[in-house]
């Protein structure tokens, strides 16, 4: 598009903030009266084409032609905003040079602004807004996002605090300091879990949950006190304080586990009580055999949800029902678009994790930018080019949020057309949870062929992940040509500034065959990696983790992630 001149200053990357305008665009805007005026004349001419595309036509049947070129046709035509003269790229600069104030034109087929003096495409937020609003695609939400969970999390201003003398006295009387373990550089909360007999599927998930920051904080700050909970249960069952067996509460058993694991005891812990409780909760899974770790994860969250507070209503998407949902619950948005008229039907569904298909064919990685360096005459391609064949987490997420054409046997009833039409379906993440758990679907079961198989294919995953491109606002924005406009889900205050950036803290891996395999968890503590293999906790290098076969990946919002901190001496 543009040769020679130095590039303009980079944009901030905020999709709602435009890059600084060139002097000609700035001049055009200031000459027009007010901010809405500049593109008012254009709004009448904006015609929407298939969803997301717009063009400029003065009347529907107009065929634009470049004046100087005419009658020869030319491609890529620009209409001057000042006088509506249409020119091709070779004649446009001359038109602008001869007439000051006529520098800004619009690409008639793409509805993009062009500065003929700078010879470059330029961008303006009001123009983008006009384009988006002109499209006016009819749509409906069969269910708007449940308002309870979209309410902004209450923000409290940060105030530094130190305990006063009274608080110190209370803490001193009611607690005893944990001696730092020998070799005080070891982090707290590392403790092996005994294998009770094919229970590595359970141990691996437990290790990840024991170090899930918001969950760990909840239990370590005594928000679910098992003694109080059991006592309340006994009271509810009728008065007899010491009668009968204690009722099953997975959260209580988890509380006991946190206390045990974060104590100074280093011998492995046996989660027997937890297994007993879980088998009572999930009786269909209660058998001595290797199970699926992901199935256990779902079952366990369900168990915590059920037992923590039976009074709170479990409405979908309402994250206030229990700590499990407050930590893991997100909302997925599903759009089904009629390919004939563009009518879009939107539904929202809560989720506690995201299950991703592992592509078994070829590359799921885009060819990255053409950042090749010419050295000694030969092009040294980026290392990514050799990775054409590997699957990546981002690739899976891109596939997850890609528009999918529903088959002709799955025609969707379009409310606008009032008939079944071929449709496009597209998923996006409306609300990101505090902790995102990705489940890689490595186990395929075919009930038809009565066999199952495991997909061993390697999956690359990053240690830092920005989920913004998969959010509903980004997906919608890309559907409308990446215009600068506040789409569903856009929140432009500082509380969301890093809300889409996540850090990896736990990886559950599976090795071996489908029916004779082993689960191991890697934990990231103080930026060091530890391998949790049942009772054995060892230190491993980053490389081991990166090269492992990921089955479940746990990412936490960056603002909740504690990086390596300085060693604090006990006071």
């Amino acid at each position, binding site marked *: 598009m543009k040769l020679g001149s130095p590039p303009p200053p980079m944009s901030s*990357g905020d999709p709602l903030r435009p890059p600084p305008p060139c002097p000609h665009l700035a001049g055009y805007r200031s000459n027009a009266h007010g901010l809405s005026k500049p593109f008012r004349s254009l709004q009448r001419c904006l015609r929407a084409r298939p969803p997301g595309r717009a063009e400029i036509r003065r009347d529907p049947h107009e065929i634009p032609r470049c004046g100087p070129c005419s009658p020869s046709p030319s491609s*890529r035509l620009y209409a001057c905003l000042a006088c509506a003269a249409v020119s091709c790229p070779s004649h446009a600069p001359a038109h602008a040079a001869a007439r000051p104030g006529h520098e800004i034109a619009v690409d008639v087929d793409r509805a993009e602004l062009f500065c003929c003096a700078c010879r470059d495409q330029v961008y303006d937020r009001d123009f983008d807004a006009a384009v988006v609003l002109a499209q006016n695609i009819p749509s409906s939400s069969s269910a708007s996002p449940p308002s309870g969970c979209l309410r902004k999390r209450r923000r409290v201003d940060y105030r530094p605090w130190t305990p006063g003398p009274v608080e110190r006295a209370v803490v001193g009387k009611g607690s005893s300091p944990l001696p730092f373990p020998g070799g005080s550089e070891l982090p707290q909360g590392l403790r092996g879990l005994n294998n009770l007999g094919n229970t590595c599927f359970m141990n691996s998930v437990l290790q990840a949950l024991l170090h899930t920051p918001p969950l760990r904080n909840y239990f370590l700050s005594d928000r679910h006190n098992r003694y109080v909970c059991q006592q309340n249960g006994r009271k509810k069952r009728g008065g007899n304080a010491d009668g009968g067996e204690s009722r099953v509460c997975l959260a209580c058993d988890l509380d006991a586990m946190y206390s045990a694991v974060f104590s100074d005891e280093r011998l492995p812990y046996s989660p027997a*009580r937890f297994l007993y409780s879980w088998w009572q909760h999930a009786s269909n899974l209660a058998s001595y055999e290797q199970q699926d770790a992901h199935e256990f994860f779902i079952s366990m969250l369900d168990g915590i949800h059920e037992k923590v507070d039976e009074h709170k209503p479990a409405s979908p998407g309402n994250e206030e029902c229990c700590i499990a949902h407050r930590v893991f619950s997100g909302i997925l948005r599903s759009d089904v678009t009629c390919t004939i008229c563009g009518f879009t039907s939107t539904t929202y569904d809560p989720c506690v994790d995201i299950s991703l298909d592992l592509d078994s064919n070829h590359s799921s990685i885009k060819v*990255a930018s053409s950042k090749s360096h010419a050295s000694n005459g030969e092009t040294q391609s980026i290392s990514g080019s050799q990775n054409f064949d590997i699957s990546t987490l981002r690739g899976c997420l891109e596939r997850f949020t890609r528009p999918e054409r529903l088959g002709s046997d799955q025609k969707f009833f379009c409310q606008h057309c009032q008939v079944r039409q071929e449709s496009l379906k597209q998923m996006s993440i409306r609300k990101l949870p505090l902790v995102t758990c990705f489940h890689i679907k490595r186990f395929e079961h075919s009930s038809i062929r009565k066999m199952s198989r495991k997909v061993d294919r390697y999956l690359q995953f990053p240690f830092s992940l920005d989920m913004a491109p998969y959010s509903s606002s980004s997906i919608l924005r890309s559907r409308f040509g990446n215009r600068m406009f506040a789409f569903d889900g856009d929140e432009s205050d500082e509380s969301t500034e890093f809300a889409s950036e996540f850090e990896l803290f736990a990886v559950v891996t599976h090795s*071996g065959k489908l029916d004779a395999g082993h689960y191991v968890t890697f934990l990231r503590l103080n930026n060091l990696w530890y*391998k949790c293999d049942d009772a054995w*906790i060892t230190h491993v290098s980053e490389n081991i983790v990166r090269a492992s076969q990921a089955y479940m990946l746990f990412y936490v919002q960056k603002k909740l992630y504690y990086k390596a901190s300085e060693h604090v001496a006990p006071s």
Partner: protein
Amino acid sequence: MSDGKDGSSSSHSQLSIRCFHELLDSIIADVASECHRVARLGLDRGLDEEEEELRLSEEARASAADPSSSGEVGCKYVVDIFGQTHPAVADEIFECMNCGRPIMAGRFAPHLEKCMGKGRKARQRTTRSSAITRSRNSRGSPVSVYAPYSNSTNSARVPNGTTGGAGEEFSDCAFEAP
């Protein structure tokens, strides 16, 4: 036009070639315009980090494949970060919360399965006929050669370090063949 005289057919094919080129130019301009917008609005900021992660992943896999590197040991008989070693079958003994008997940790799950009357073995004992017709749909098929637990209560007293007679049942969870 469709009569196939040489003159008209060549201008016909010229026309279709021009048409094709116009379409191609238009598509190329579409992609260029979209990429320009993405780059100028800064929507592709994460590319550097992505490339870096890919490079690190490649290095990691190369180093893991290298047999000379002191990578992780597949076997469990290692010393953990606290300097401890552990037997292959966990030998901590505690009381079963269902029946009160002392059970060895590594045998707890199979014991509990029978103790609670759950699981396939327990069910099979009661409904022998249905066990034959039932189709299996379990991913984690246990090694089915393990001996029946008729002596499960006595096996709790197996001294440390020995695996007893039912050692092979833990093979799918203890360690796998490399």
